[in-house]
């Protein structure tokens, strides 16, 4: 069994190595890591990019918490989210989409099936060997970023290494779908398109669910803040009569409370329903959320807040005062952080259950089929 496992993994490694995309993805990962983490440095007054004039920004100055937030924000928001989680993942799917269809094609499968190994083991080993592509890429890409950040900035984000198993698991979810389509169609195009479409559907389902959750948390936060202000004004009103401006303000808060309450009452049940629905699909996004939490990556408002005051008049809508804008931004940050708070165990177990069903169907089909 060990000899056969070794043979299957070695064969897949050679297969992947023979594909140009393997090297292209590796090259882009290296370029991205260097571009994101090796092209700037921090000075006592701010940031210096390559040979350009230093940018004064006390929030990003050497030794500040802002600097660490900036680096982990780049790692999470750009390197993991956009490149490793999307770009590299799509290229990995393109590279490995033909692995199982080729293995199952006429003339190739006969030989494998005629060897002393059971069909289910054969399929599962071939499937797992397909994970090699992403595993190798991630070890090198995440490892490189980890080393560059550590050596250049003396900032060793050990949790970043969690990106290797977590993103490999993300690919596992997608590759389970690919395996099912491969076994039924034996077509590379169908496998690739089917997997990408399934991924898009999963993404949209998660996006909708996240939007409801975010809206629910954000509205809840606004509701609490409005409630506190109303209580404050009501306390003042017990001591003295409110001025007309204060009364108008209180009335406005009471209106806001009703509005927030109404939104919350609508959104909250949908947030729960959507969570129940996505419980039955492989949740690719949850893994990135967990990673973001572990590396203490800033939420978007916090990250952009390092460079600009996003509550000032330049960005504020005309009909919104500074306090309301500040509330909205803070509520959004609270909601962003809340969305990241997932139960990893529940997410992984339910996702793996969904994958087990997909792989179970694929294995059953493979073991029963004549080739």
């Amino acid at each position, binding site marked *: 069994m060990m000899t056969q496992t070794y*043979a299957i993994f070695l064969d897949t490694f050679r297969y992947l190595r023979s594909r140009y995309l393997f090297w292209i993805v590796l090259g882009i990962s290296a370029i991205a890591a260097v571009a994101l983490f090796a092209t700037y440095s921090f000075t006592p007054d701010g940031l210096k990019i390559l040979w350009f004039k230093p940018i004064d920004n006390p929030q990003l100055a050497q030794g500040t918490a802002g600097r660490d937030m900036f680096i982990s924000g780049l790692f999470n928001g750009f390197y993991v989210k956009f490149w490793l989680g999307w770009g590299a993942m799509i290229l990995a799917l393109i590279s490995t989409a033909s692995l199982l269809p080729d293995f199952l094609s006429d003339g*190739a499968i006969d*030989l494998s099936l005629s060897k*002393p190994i059971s069909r289910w083991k054969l399929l599962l080993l071939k499937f797992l060997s397909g994970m090699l592509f992403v595993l190798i890429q991630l070890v090198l890409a995440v490892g490189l970023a980890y080393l560059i950040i550590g050596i250049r900035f003396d900032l060793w984000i050990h949790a970043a290494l969690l990106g290797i198993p977590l993103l490999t698991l993300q690919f596992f979810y997608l590759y389970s779908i690919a395996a099912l389509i491969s076994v039924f169609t034996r077509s590379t195009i169908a496998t690739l398109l089917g997997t990408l479409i399934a991924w898009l559907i999963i993404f949209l389902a998660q996006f909708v669910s996240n939007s409801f959750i975010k809206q629910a948390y954000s509205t809840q936060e606004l509701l609490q803040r409005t409630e506190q202000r109303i209580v404050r004004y009501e306390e003042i009103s017990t001591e003295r009569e409110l001025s007309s401006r204060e009364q108008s303000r209180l009335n406005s808060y009471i209106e806001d409370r009703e509005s927030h309450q109404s939104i919350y009452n609508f959104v909250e049940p949908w947030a729960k329903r959507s969570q129940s629905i996505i419980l039955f699909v492989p949740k690719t996004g949850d893994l990135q959320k967990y990673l973001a939490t572990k590396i203490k990556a800033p939420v978007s408002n916090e990250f952009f807040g390092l460079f600009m005051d996003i509550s000032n008049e330049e960005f504020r809508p005309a009909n919104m005062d500074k306090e309301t804008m500040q509330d909205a931004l803070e509520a959004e940050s609270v909601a962003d952080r809340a969305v990241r708070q997932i139960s990893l165990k529940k997410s992984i177990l339910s996702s793996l259950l969904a994958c087990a069903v997909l792989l179970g169907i694929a294995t059953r089909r493979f073991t029963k089929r004549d080739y």
Partner: protein
Amino acid sequence: MTAVIDIKGVEKTFKRRIKALRGVDMAVGEGEIFGLLGPNGAGKSTLVKIMMTVISPSKCSGTVLGQKVGDKATLRQIGYLPEHHRFPPYLTGRQVLEHFGAMSGNARKQRKAKASELLELVGMESWHKDKLGSYSKGMRQRVGLAQALMNDPKLVVLDEPTDGVDPLGRRDIRNILTHLKDEGHTIFLNSHLLSELEMVCDRVAIMVKGMIRQQGTINDLTDGLERYEIEIQNAKSIDTISNQLGSLLNLDSPSVTSQSNTITIPSPDVQQAQLAIDFLRKQDIAIVEIRQSRPSLEDLFVKAVESEPEGHTPGAFSGSKGAPS
């Protein structure tokens, strides 16, 4: 002789309506080269795939190497070269051998040594570092044959091994088969190249429309079918002479036939040949040569195929070989 393959009543129906095999009984003895022949779509590859567990039979009893058909562990002792095989083009010849050797469960050291030995045997040692994508069909076939021998199998199953191989290559493969037989391997050969089979096989089976029509040694199959061929000269009308001879000898079907300058007396009886000679001499016809011969495998094959009853539902797939996928 111990039976290496002893299968009975093998049936296979695809998609509940296409009967590819209709109760095949077959026995292959240890150490022999056994040839399975039949026209395209006869079900030969389906039968081979059932033995190799690539296809599951609808019905089957019997054994391969003493174990029930479909037993995975038995495959460790079987080497297989499928028809229309497709080896990974990104592997070199040596890597193909080592990969499939490992898939058969061979240890690393054993694989390395065996691969070198087999590459030499099939004449591919000079190309062992080249990728299969650059190989010709014949070269791939040689590597395929070597691959089937990587686990030092007791039984070697070869499906159309000379497909795409030039005459010299075919001769080499025949020599290898003979060499393997001498080493004690049992070889099951599936081919529609009758001359190939005739040259190397100890026993053959003829399969037509999913059934074995004849089975045995070529001598067994041609026993009683010996004939005399008389080559003549200066005959005005050979067809007339042949008809006259037919009446004289009073033979049952098949009757006396003629082709070019040769008259064939379809009887092993030497007296009949004597009568024919006397008749020809009386007619003042010069006899150039008289020889006793047996029907060729091709004759047996054609006879078996043509004797299929009219209106019989085809057992396999018209216009295609092997199983649908």
